[in-house]
């Protein structure tokens, strides 16, 4: 069964460094998302992406964050200058388009640790 994949599974970085988290959505899906989950807290929406542009973003998704679909398969989240509070699990999700296809399928996540 097709699934969303994410790399790396764990990323450790120093505060102020840039990180890029990578995702390969399910191949025929057209909508892409990033969510994050701080340890012990809720899964929170960051951004949605469709047709090569951001369709919606949350207050968390400030100028330090950006997303890109550099080719036909990858979807990336970049954090320009990481802060301690960016430490969290980051989940990529994707969704097909069409009637009755409202389900978002999540990847296994990347654990980001900012020191």
């Amino acid at each position, binding site marked *: 069964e097709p699934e*969303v994949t994410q790399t790396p599974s764990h990323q450790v970085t120093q505060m102020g460094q840039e990180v890029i988290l990578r995702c390969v959505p399910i191949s025929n899906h057209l*909508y892409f*998302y990033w*969510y994050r989950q701080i340890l012990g*807290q*809720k*899964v*929170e*929406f960051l951004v*949605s992406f469709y047709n090569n542009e951001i*369709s*919606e973003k*949350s207050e968390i998704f400030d100028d330090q964050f950006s997303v890109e679909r550099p080719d036909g398969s990858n979807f990336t989240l970049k954090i320009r200058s990481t802060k301690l509070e960016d430490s969290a*699990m980051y*989940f990529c999700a994707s969704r097909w388009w069409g009637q009755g296809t*409202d*389900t*978002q*399928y*999540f*990847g*296994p*996540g990347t*654990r980001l640790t900012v020191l």
Partner: protein
Amino acid sequence: SQKIEQNSEALNIQEGKTATLTCNYTNYSPAYLQWYRQDPGRGPVFLLLIRENEKEKRKERLKVTFDTTLKQSLFHITASQPADSATYLCARLSYNTDKLIFGTGTRLQVFP
């Protein structure tokens, strides 16, 4: 603001019994409620979706209900097994948005 509330206390039940988890929402009714399973250190895994105009949905041992009067969804696992032990997340999706709003999840522990 739109919120999803789940009982944050763990639910402990014996194998073979039916587990019932509760999800309450605030403000207007969402278009959909979705239930996910999350194991420690893993991503949410989709289980069931129920639409606003549906009362009940079933899939194998799982059943979800949607009560717009009570602003509540119930998630049932019948004949529960230790392998069902996990955190179960409820999430809402409204008509004019594409973002899922999650609850904190309820941890289910099924013991033999």
